[in-house]
């Protein structure tokens, strides 16, 4: 099993606020790694540091090491755009562009500008298939993405991401806007995607972490309290604080 992302001693400040404190983490290829913890613990911040989306926040300061594919992602000579194509992201709320289904999936390819029309058509079809949307949507490619139900919108966002062929998929509470049935569909899809992609998911839903993830990290107030195999975290955690949280005694 190979390590895709290795985080060590990561400190992050938003102005004076110390949001991440000496955080370590290891992400294994073709596994699902879940980050759990109460709101404001820094799990989303950690996730957004991995594809450098935090660069867009004014006044952010980051120290420590994040190795992706053996290279320091905050190091010199790293092209942020290339990095973000390799480490893609699915957001909390489904956020398709106000374009057709087809144009949404083709977006990344058109920005890239290296694919021909024909290639784009193929990739759009493949991406929709991988996100299990081809069957329901193959006759509705020209419909507005905004007319789809929310779970299809979220899977469309996943398809849009798959089209740029990322290696790692970061998911920031991808099911929090969805009902339980839609959530289970997305979870099934994640287990399928795990065969080809490395997934890191932030979730406030502990059952979800337990159901789908291989490794889990419990974060509290900007610290990584415990990071281990999910079985271990949920059955026999090393730390009392982790135990308190997963058993619902957190206070």
């Amino acid at each position, binding site marked *: 099993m190979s390590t895709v992302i290795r985080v060590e001693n990561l400190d992050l400040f938003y102005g004076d606020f110390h949001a991440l404190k000496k955080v370590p983490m290891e992400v294994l290829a073709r596994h699902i790694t879940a980050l759990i913890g109460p709101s404001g613990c820094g799990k989303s911040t950690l996730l957004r540091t991995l*594809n450098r*989306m935090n660069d*867009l926040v*004014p006044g952010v300061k980051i120290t420590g090491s994040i190795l992706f594919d053996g290279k320091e992602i905050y190091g010199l000579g790293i092209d942020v*755009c*290339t*990095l*973000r*194509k390799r480490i*893609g*992201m699915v*957001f909390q*709320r489904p*956020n398709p*562009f*106000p*374009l*057709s289904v087809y144009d949404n999936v083709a*977006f*990344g390819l*058109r*920005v*890239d500008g290296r694919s021909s029309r024909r290639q784009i058509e193929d990739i759009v079809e493949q991406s929709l298939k991988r996100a299990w949307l081809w069957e329901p949507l193959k006759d509705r490619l*020209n*419909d*507005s*993405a*905004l007319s789809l139900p929310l779970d299809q919108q979220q899977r469309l*966002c996943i398809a*849009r*991401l798959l089209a*740029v062929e990322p290696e790692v998929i970061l998911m920031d509470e991808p099911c929090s806007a969805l009902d339980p049935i839609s959530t289970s569909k997305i979870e099934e899809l994640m287990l399928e995607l795990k065969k080809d992609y490395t997934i890191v998911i932030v979730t406030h839903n502990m059952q979800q972490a337990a159901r789908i993830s291989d490794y889990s990290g419990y974060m509290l107030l900007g610290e990584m309290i415990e990071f281990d195999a999910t079985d271990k975290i949920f059955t026999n955690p090393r730390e009392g604080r982790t135990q308190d949280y997963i058993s619902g005694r957190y206070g």
Partner: protein
Amino acid sequence: MRVSPKFTQALAVLLLGSATLLTLAVLFFVIAFVLVKGLPGVTWDFLTTAPKEMGKEGGIFPTLVGTILLPLLAIGIAVPLGVGTAIYLTEYTRENRMTRALRFGTDCLAGIPSIIFGLFGFIFFVVMLKMGWCLLSGALTLAIMVLPTIIRTSEEAIRSVPNAYREVSFSLGATRWETVIKVILPNALPGIVTGMVLGVGRSIGETAAVIFTAGSSLRMPLTVFDSVRTMSVHFYILAREGISNEKAYATASVLIISVLLINLVAYTMMHRFISKRAK
């Protein structure tokens, strides 16, 4: 005695309703007044022939051409500059003292009477740069005049594009420029077009700044260095100098109809674009 809520509700509806009615009535009256007096004089000949005897006889063809060319050129200069500035202020800089000063400056510029721009254009373009009264001097002056409007409306339009769109675009590996071109401008277009239409409207209706910079020649402009007269200026001169009231109202009618047509065309084009994007 307490007034019943039902009564205040009825009163509110009455007052707001009459305010709306009054506004519409005034607007309708002005337009109807001009059209009734002017439309009989609008004939095919009036539109397509040159004026004779300073406009006492004949048509308005050269001023019609001037009215099309001058605002078009002005907007052609102002839109790239204005939209570019708006993009830079919103997407490429963070809010700081400089952007606030710039914004304050554009707001002040928007409130300056047009005659001041006319005077500036006259001194700078016409005299100092020795360009003379011409289409280009006029267009540059009008461009400066409508620039603040275009910057502010474009800025508002760009700002109202949801941040989620920017995030998604960046997360898919797009650069800031690609995000601007592929995501921000298409979504901000309706607002930008509104600014353009406002700018065209102001340019078409402008007289003071135009007389000072583009002159008032009744000859047909052949290059941008020829003087032109717009319909607004023509109308002003016909009425002011008492040349012909009848021709003045006819010119005004054509002016009103052109402005209506421009708005109509701009908004239909915009709606077509929007519905094409997300149907």
